[in-house]
Every structure is written in structure tokens, then in C-alpha cells.
């Protein structure tokens, strides 16, 4: 499923809303999650899962082809842990 299919399903279920409204709703949800992660906040959606941001400190990496040392700067990586309900649904 891709975003446009998700939007279409919501449009079909909500005939009183314009497609543009539904697009804004879906955008608002994922913008809110992205903005929270960009602040370093955690996003916890019971049953669905939790998003968090993990720090990856700067390190010295190596070019595997040449063996040359390269400095790799500090990074932040988003993490997702699936919620209990979805885990159980996938394993039924």
C-alpha cells in the first residue's frame, strides 16, 4: 500500500470530506510525527508502535576498498518498535 491508496481508502470511508481535506489530515499526522522526532521527542502510539531518535556518535570509519581512515560525523537515526497489537496480528 502506498500513501495515495491510504488516502483513497479514507476518502471512500468519509464521503463528507474533500480529497484535499483527507490529504491534509494524513500530512498533518506524519508531519507531527516527523517534527516530534526532529525535536528529539519520542512518539508512542499504543497498539501501533513507538518512534524514537537514537544518537550515533562520531566515529572513525574506514573505506573498505582502500583501508583509508575517514571521519564519520555524529548522526541521529530514527527507530521504530512495533506495538504488541500489530505484532500479534502479523503472527496470527
Amino acid at each position, binding site marked *: *500500500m*502506498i500513501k495515495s491508496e491510504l488516502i483513497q481508502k479514507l476518502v471512500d470511508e*468519509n464521503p463528507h470530506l474533500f480529497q484535499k481535506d483527507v490529504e491534509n489530515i494524513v500530512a*498533518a*499526522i506524519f508531519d507531527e510525527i516527523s517534527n516530534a*522526532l526532529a525535536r528529539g521527542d519520542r*512518539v508512542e502510539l499504543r497498539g501501533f508502535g513507538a518512534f524514537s531518535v537514537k544518537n550515533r556518535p562520531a566515529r572513525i570509519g574506514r573505506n573498505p576498498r582502500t583501508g583509508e581512515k575517514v571521519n564519520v560525523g555524529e548522526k541521529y*537515526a530514527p527507530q521504530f518498535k512495533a506495538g504488541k497489537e500489530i505484532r500479534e496480528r*502479523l503472527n496470527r
Partner: protein
Amino acid sequence: MGHKTVTRADLAEAVYQKVGLSRTESAELVERTLDLICDGLVQDKSVKLSSFGSFHVRSKSERIGRNPKTGEEVPILPRQVLVFKPSNVLKSKINKSMVGSGK
């Protein structure tokens, strides 16, 4: 780290602010969106949300695990796991605001 935790209520509030539906309806739409994503994962094994990221269902085969306390071997049955791959847009957005912020 003393960060805030964002929940469904915050997502519903964001929808309420942006779209101007009632708070109740905003909350219901957040719930339906999450449910439809779950249904999509069960049916298609993958849900892609451009500029946010994609969710994929991966099959894990059986392996032998060990109870770390007793050392006892236990089989871990084959199972389905859900993984999230953040988009480059999301990754760069997070890095732009977090790197050097000391958080």
C-alpha cells in the same frame, strides 16, 4: 533525556488545528489512518509513505535461542516482524535539527 512523548492525542490536535474538523472527528481519523496502515501491512506486507518512510513485514525463520538465566535452549519459532525504514527526507530533517544541538 527529558523529552516529551507525543501520543495519539497530539496527532489528533495537529489534525484539528490544520483541517478544522471537530476534535472528536480528528481523533477518529487518526485512529482510522493507523488502522488502515495495519490492515495494509497484514494484506500487502508493506506500506510506503513517501517523504516519511516505509514499513515492511519480514519473515524470520526458526532459530535456537537460549534462556540467558538458565542457559536452557529454547526454539524461537518462525515469525513475522515489522520493520520501519525512514526516508532520506525524514533522516535529513532529524539530522539538520539534532546534530550539534547537544540533545
